[in-house]
């Protein structure tokens, strides 16, 4: 191969690979990301069943009920809307009523509850998930650091 051909082969291969990678990333973005919603958003928009989303807010006071085995029911609220959540598994250490929470999961058809498979735990007793804090501030529900305790 001549110098030019060699260079062309290497550059061509590289560009082709990069192009494939870009397509792959774009495909993954369309498939594998979860949008973040608050209960208030869900009053306005309908989420199709089986779509993975994140749902965040405060755990409503008095809403936590233990079901059979490790199934837990609780409600996530932002004082405008409230969504009931079903979760099977072990709740994070810092899960408490009145605390901020982010859950990930989906709605299934024929069931009004949000079925979560992940409930996020954070490393601080005052922790308020950033997404939730931002939105609560916007809606005027946020009462500063004290409210989160």
């Amino acid at each position, binding site marked *: *191969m001549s*110098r030019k051909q*060699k260079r062309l*082969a*290497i550059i061509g*291969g*590289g560009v082709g*690979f*990069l192009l494939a*990678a870009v397509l*792959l*990333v774009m*495909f*993954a*973005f369309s*498939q*594998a*990301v*979860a*949008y*973040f919603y608050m209960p208030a958003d869900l009053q306005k928009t309908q989420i199709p069943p089986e779509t993975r989303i*994140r749902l965040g807010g405060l755990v409503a006071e008095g809403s936590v009920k*233990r079901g059979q*085995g*490790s199934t837990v029911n609780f409600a996530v609220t932002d004082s405008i809307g409230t969504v009931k959540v079903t979760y*099977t*598994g*072990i*709740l994070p*250490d*810092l899960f408490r009523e009145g605390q901020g929470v982010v859950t*990930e999961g989906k709605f299934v058809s024929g069931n009004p509850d949000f079925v979560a498979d992940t409930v996020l*735990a*954070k*490393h*601080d*007793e005052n922790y308020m*998930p*950033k*997404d939730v804090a931002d939105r609560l501030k916007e809606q005027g529900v946020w009462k500063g650091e004290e409210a989160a305790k």
Partner: protein
Amino acid sequence: MIIELGHYALVLALATSILQSLLPIFGALRGDRSLMQVGTTAALATFGLVAVSFAVLTYAHVTSDFSVQNVWENSHSLIPLIYKYSGVWGNHEGSMLLWMLILTFFSALVATFGRNLPETLKANVLSVQAWIATAFCLFILLTSNPFARLLPAPGDGKDLNPVLQDIGLAIHPPLLYLGYVGFSVCFSFAVAALIEGRIDAAWARWVRPWALAAWTCLTAGISMGSYWAYYELGWGGWWFWDPVENASFMPWLAGTALLHSALVMEKREALKIWTVLLAIMTFSMSLLGTFLVRSGVLTSVHAFATDPTRGVFILAILVFFIGGALSLFAFRATHLKAGGLFAPISREGALVFNNLILTTAAATVLTGTLYPLVLEALTGSKISVGPPFFNMTFGLLMLPLLLAVPFGPLLAWKRGDLFGAGQRLFAAVGIGLLIGGIVYYVEHGGPIMALFGIALGVYLIAGSLTDLALRAGLGKVSGSVAFRRLKGLPRSAFGTSLAHMGLGVTLIGIVAVTAFETEHVVEMKPGMTTEAGGYTLRFDGMRQSNGPNYTEDSGHFTVSIGGVNVTEMWSSKRLYTARRMPTTEAGIRSFGASQLYVSLGDAMADGGVVVRIWWKPFILCIWGGTLFMIAGGVVSLSDRRLRVGAPSRAKKPKKLVLEPAE
């Protein structure tokens, strides 16, 4: 008084590093030797001053001096001594001081061991190091002073964050920072070379040991962090694609690419411009990582505190260094002469392939990490990019690389024989498929991708050994000759082999645990049993106890197999009294490379407790593989040819001049 001394030492360090950032580079510009030599003295002085400052902060933590705000916020009189030490860097201010300490430590190393470097290059490198040091010193003094006092001094501290009270987290940050910051030396060398407008194979020879040392530490740091997350968080996961994990993973990917491209440059004088760019990018990734972690722009399990002024300050540092270095690169890169030619199928070609994939993978991780930020800034909608995204993109990208790894060392420089290399790897492929088949038989099937993954891992291990065996001439010459030849191989050949083998071991661990782990969430009452991984666990009951600064509820389990008791396990929940913060201390038992992992949930009203039990087959391989990689790095570093200025042995035949570890 001592506290103020520490603060003062840090201010002095700022002064000396400003001197170091200006004088040597002026000296290099004007050919003034005495000015250039200021760099060495200043680098040592700066390191000494920062060390004093760090020692003072450590003293404050160890003596529990709660008049220092940093100590009050992150320590407690009752915590064990080791966590008083690790509490020094278990917080924002202290960890930035540690960053600074390690940065100046590396400058001091360059100053001490860089005697064989050309004078101007050394002066320029030290100046560039000092620019970084100055920026971070200013950052600490202006936004994150660890020596701020409290008046009157509180009676007791607020305690170190309980999840940080762990031996793993005591060692993880220093190792990680040694890696992060170690790449600053490569960065400084790259910028210095661009300033001088001259670069050759010798440059790569000087840079490679630094890159290798930094890479080894970073590997150890990431691995340690992953194991910590695994046993301390109690979620049973070992990698979450969390932004902060990504922040350390991106420099690792770029640094791995840098190691391989510097190899090409050292041996063949090719890929010069690319290597310089990669050196800049690697440290940029480290800076970006620091920014992501320290500014708290991303929602993350690691974000200690969020303070907008800090974020803006680090962002400014980031823009200045990355932007500055890239502009310099744009102006100067054309002056650098491109070197050696090679065919697409050759050792160089294989290493370019490696670089292409690793940098693309790093870019993908970067995109996934930053995309939520960008999208939120542009459209206001919030998304989470989690494991599904990264597994899909990163996993697929790695596949061709893993297949190609054993080929690299078997191809000749300049023009290689792909078919020949393939023939020599027949045995490795065969062993891989055989083990895959055995797993299929033992597991009665199993997902085809998992079988393929395990076969791939075995192929990687066998392929690395093939390389060593071929070099020793095993099978062609008598055993004793082969053994002598093996002993005579340069250490770097073993380094390469170990690191590549480690990749295979880690892959096997990842695949095995992903495909074959079992998880049960059950409510257990005392006396009840449950099965996991062939073992029977009996829950015996709960017990309360008190630690130095926590209370603990522990569940006791007896593990048996076929009716015979094998071992017992404790799994607990702790409540740290100072912060009223609960944590989970999972119960973990190893059986070979596999583990039983028991995590406690909430107690039920009827005396039962929710328990989560995992069987994690071959999970220890994940971290075991990184030990191989670290060993590979250390062995390669000990290769005499990598030592700066070491005379090269001429008696080695050309065939045996191998590449040091990647």
